[in-house]
């Protein structure tokens, strides 16, 4: 018997299901096709772009920290970095950090020395961040109705480092090469300039612990030795040097502030209660904390001369070479109780550095066009007339007090009448006392400042950029956009 079955109807169900799946797949594919570029841009490229800058700035910070070590911890500055004769770099061993394994590296070189022999550093830092996410890109530089300018701003290295290929590893068109990258990445480069912070910038007297200022007949004002010798102009707005006369500022790191005379400048304290009055002719701010680190002997001085090793009696330094700010004539003496005269070499600007490992009780006579720095480990006790700086330019005679290794030990600097002088003192661990009525041009940084009398202080604005570096700061920021 043959049974005729009705035709099967299940086949159409299968076809319907397949068609439905096909349609849904097409829709899903279209959605993914349209979204993936947006997703790449939003999730990977923007993130990589920003993170690479963070990495570059981290590299700059690390390099800046090493630059500061040249002042505070010279023996450990640039430890582990590669020296190439003109500078240092860690480009072959970049610092890796963060969840995305960002890479930071930097190259540091000295691009100039200033008139005080301080090095100015250029820091070139590079940061690399991976471009995470899907690899499909569909990128386009153009911005119009059909394109979105996906790669207009952010340069992504998918297979090769475009920067090395186009500009060379240092960006100077030298050493161009096709260098593959381990994965899609974005690199950004910045250049920072670290400039020395000089000790007497914009402040006549800076004390960390206390300030007992001049008596009612004394005062603090300013001038600029680059524009001529000092004269009082602070109360005459029509005077051509009036604008230079109101920088006799006082900065105090505590609230212990006492004053009798006029201050032709600003006053800042840390918790003081200084109020405006007829004596202070600038601004007052009682909320300006600051600290000054101990001062250590510079490590970049040349080998010392063999003699003299002591300054007793009358000693005249007649030099054979003038030296320079970066490479001065350098002496180390164990005592300074005599009378020292430092002569100019011919007509050349002459540079002399002296390290006094003991106390200073003698006198010094610095001839014009001679630039002297005196570093002392002990104390200073002299009369004002014993400090003779014949040029009258205070930056030509600078005293630096090396901080005692025991922080409980305080140095002392005592200056007595009679006489006047032009000089600077940078001694953050010292108590500074001055008696009588000396007329002083220069500036001072100390722990405590005590004046018993009516001395007048005239800050020299030319000191803004003069003196041994005490720190570094970043003065310029540029990004290499290539």
């Amino acid at each position: 018997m043959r049974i005729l079955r009705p035709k099967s109807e299940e086949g159409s169900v299968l076809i319907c299901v397949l068609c439905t799946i096909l349609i849904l797949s097409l829709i899903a594919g279209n959605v993914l096709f349209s979204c993936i570029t947006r997703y790449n841009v939003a999730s990977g490229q923007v993130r990589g772009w920003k993170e690479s800058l963070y990495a570059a700035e981290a590299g700059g910070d690390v390099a800046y920290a090493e630059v500061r070590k040249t002042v505070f911890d010279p023996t450990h500055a640039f430890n582990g970095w590669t020296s190439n004769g003109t500078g240092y770099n860690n480009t072959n061993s970049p610092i890796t950090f963060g969840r995305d394994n960002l890479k930071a590296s930097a190259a540091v070189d000295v691009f100039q020395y200033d008139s005080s022999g301080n090095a100015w550093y250029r820091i070139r830092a590079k940061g690399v961040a991976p471009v995470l996410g899907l690899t499909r890109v569909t990128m386009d530089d153009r911005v119009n109705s059909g394109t979105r300018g996906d790669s207009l701003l952010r340069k992504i290295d998918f297979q090769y480092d475009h920067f090395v290929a186009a500009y060379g590893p240092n960006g100077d068109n030298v050493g161009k090469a096709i260098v593959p990258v381990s994965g899609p990445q974005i690199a950004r480069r910045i250049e920072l300039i670290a400039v020395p912070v000089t000790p007497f910038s914009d402040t006549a007297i800076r004390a960390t612990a206390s300030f007992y200022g001049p008596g009612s007949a004394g005062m603090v004002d300013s001038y600029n030795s680059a524009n001529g010798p000092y004269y009082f102009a602070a109360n005459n707005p029509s005077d051509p040097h009036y604008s230079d006369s109101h920088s006799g500022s006082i900065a105090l790191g505590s609230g212990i502030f006492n004053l009798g005379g006029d201050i032709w400048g600003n006053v800042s304290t840390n918790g003081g209660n200084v109020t405006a009055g007829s004596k202070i002719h600038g601004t007052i701010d009682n909320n300006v904390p600051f600290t000054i680190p101990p001062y250590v002997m510079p490590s970049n001085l040349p080998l010392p001369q063999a003699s003299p090793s002591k300054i007793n009696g009358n000693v005249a330094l007649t030099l054979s070479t003038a030296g320079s700010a970066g490479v001065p004539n350098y002496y180390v003496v164990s005592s300074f109780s005599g009378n020292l005269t430092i002569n100019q070499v011919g007509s050349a600007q002459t540079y002399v550095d002296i390290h006094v490992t003991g106390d200073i009780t003698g006198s010094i006579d610095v001839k014009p066009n001679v630039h002297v720095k005196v570093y002392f480990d002990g104390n200073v006790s002299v009369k004002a007339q014993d400090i003779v700086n014949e040029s009258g330019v205070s930056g030509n005679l600078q005293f630096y007090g090396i901080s005692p290794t025991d922080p409980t030990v305080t140095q002392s600097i005592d200056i007595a009448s009679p006489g006047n002088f032009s000089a600077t003192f940078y001694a953050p661990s010292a108590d500074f006392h001055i008696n009588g009525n000396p007329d002083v041009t220069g500036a001072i940084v100390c722990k405590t400042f005590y004046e018993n009398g009516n001395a007048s202080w005239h800050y020299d604005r030319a000191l803004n950029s003069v003196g041994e570096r005490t720190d570094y700061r970043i003065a310029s920021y540029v990004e290499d956009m290539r």
Partner: protein
Amino acid sequence: MTLKTLQKTAGFTLGEMLVAVSVSSIVLAAAVASSVSLQKSFNAVDNYFATLIQQVRIIDYLSRDVNRGLSVTTSVDLQTVTVNLPNYIIQAGDPEAVGNPSLIGTPRSPTISYSSGSMQINYGASTSTVVYSVSNSSILRTENGAVTTIASSTDQLVPQTTDVELANTECVNSAVTFMPIFTMSGSPAARTGTSLYSTAYLRNKRRG
């Protein structure tokens, strides 16, 4: 013996057909309407997302230039931002390049100058100027005369606060908005809801 099944037993009545066609039409109409709506929604979302990315690009551009800038000024109508930049890269025609063309495209070495007692780091004797401006629905970036369209359909660049100098630091707060294509009667709230804000600081001490 042969058993025969009945043929044409599955026929529909006219009434059944009418009901079936009616229901099918309704379902099909709903499907078409849904598809059109879905497509519109997708386009709107896609456009929104794409424009949002352009907003981010504008902000990134502006932040990059402000960070490395020497000064930033804005127009009174807040539709133009001008940034002065260091001339870091030597360009064709620059004095250095005239004597030595191989220097084109290389970084300049910095130099120092003093003005009114303040020290400055310089890259070359002059600076570059970048102007961000709104042109219809596009944002233009003009660097030394060279115009680049950096975004389209993002039609407002509004620096909120400008020239704020705090302890030698200047910041620029900016907002970028756009009008979504899928809004009810183009209400202002729709634009406000797309605002993207940014604050960028000059890393260099302001000049001028």
